[in-house]
């Protein structure tokens, strides 16, 4: 069911006051990325909507100030460049930090990369050695000439890292700095395509350190690599929203 772009343009106002839902919201946001004039209009109307908000100011409970200020000591900030933002605004703002590695030094760079991924950040050296020894596939992804490193921040703190080879259709994923998933819970990794999700495995290790690298095969452009928190042992299908995700691209 597709809507004329002219009709979509008329939704700028409804979008600016968050009056769009469901498919229409998705469709409009998709349109927005390709329509600079719509984006400009939305931005102006959001300024206007914000004025409505400012005019509604109300005195919050006095205790809120100390609570919020205190909480900032426990909330990790997102880094300055465009790592994908998963939760804010319901995942509507998406950016990524993508680093293309120079081809000539791919192997050396990848060796360095896995060090960054799995060791130096968190000091889980043995996991790296284990992973290297155990998995030729992982090594092959890491040394693929077209491999990219992509980072995604986790909503629970910490970082998800993926090295993706579009050519090999494979990705190696680790996570670092994430808190324990909780009693009888695990971090589970998925490849999500459209509305379907395929489990790639559990992220072992965790705690404050890095998880062991996990290899995902049959990863296609547009697929999303996502981590959810699931009951111990994992589940067949995700039962919760991702706490971190990285979308692959071609």
């Amino acid at each position, binding site marked *: 069911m597709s809507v004329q772009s002219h009709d979509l343009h008329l939704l700028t106002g409804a979008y600016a006051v968050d*009056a769009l839902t469901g498919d229409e919201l998705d469709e409009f946001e998709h349109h927005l990325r390709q329509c600079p004039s719509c984006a400009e*209009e939305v931005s102006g109307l959001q300024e206007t909507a914000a004025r409505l908000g400012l005019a*509604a100011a109300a005195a*919050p409970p006095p205790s809120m100030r100390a609570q919020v200020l205190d909480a900032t000591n426990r909330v990790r900030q997102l880094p300055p460049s465009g790592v994908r933002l998963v939760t804010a605004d319901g995942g509507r703002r998406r950016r990524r930090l993508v680093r293309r590695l120079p081809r000539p030094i791919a192997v050396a760079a990848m060796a360095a990369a896995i060090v960054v991924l799995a060791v130096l950040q968190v000091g889980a050296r043995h996991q790296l050695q284990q992973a290297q020894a155990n998995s030729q596939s992982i090594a092959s992804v890491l040394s693929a000439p077209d491999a990219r490193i992509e980072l995604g921040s986790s909503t629970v703190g910490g970082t998800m890292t993926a090295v993706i080879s579009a050519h090999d259709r494979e990705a190696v994923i680790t996570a670092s700095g994430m808190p324990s998933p909780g009693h009888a819970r695990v971090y589970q990794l998925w490849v999500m395509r459209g509305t379907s999700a395929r489990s790639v495995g559990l992220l072992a290790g965790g705690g404050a350190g890095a998880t062991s690298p996990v290899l995902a095969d049959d990863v296609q452009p547009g697929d999303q690599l996502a981590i959810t928190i699931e009951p111990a042992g994992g589940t067949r299908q995700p039962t919760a929203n991702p706490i971190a995700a990285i979308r692959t691209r071609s």
Partner: protein
Amino acid sequence: MNTPSVGRQPHGRGHSEGHGHDLAGLLAQVACGDHAAFEAVYDQLAGPVYGVARKVLRDPAQSEEVAQEVLLEVWRSASRFDPARGSAAAWVMTIAHRRAVDRVRAENAATAREQKAAPDIGASDDVFELVDVALDRQRVRRCMGSLSTLQAEAIKLAYYGGYSYPEVAGLLGLPLGTVKTRIRDGLIRMRDCMEVAP
């Protein structure tokens, strides 16, 4: 013998450029982990953030929860604020309104909202009495007054009521297309009235 005149300083008053109100500058400092800058941001925006949550959610406890989430989100993602794409206040208020509306819609999925408790679309704003916002309120009221009744009602229901535009259409008994254009036309007219730069 001429004595050169000294001591006359052109800027005797220690000119401070919008000190305390430069939200964009403060957010840049917050992005670097500056807690004092965040306190200043809090003091400027906690009222509006909480107020918009109250408007949409009504319930004080829920509003406080959402306001806290939003303000922590500002702390967390200050580095993502891009001054080229809009004002700092709009960035924060967009997050705040979206969170409040998301909360309402999540609840609606579980329990139908009482339609009868819906919108005081009149001008009765019982919630706040802050001197700082008097000017904003005045200007918003004045510009609201320049809209057609339907435009103003549609915008108030959508923004302050947190209703989706199909819900607004249902409440006002109007076709979807009409509501869609009323909201847009009304906002454009308000934008021009308030001289908000595009």
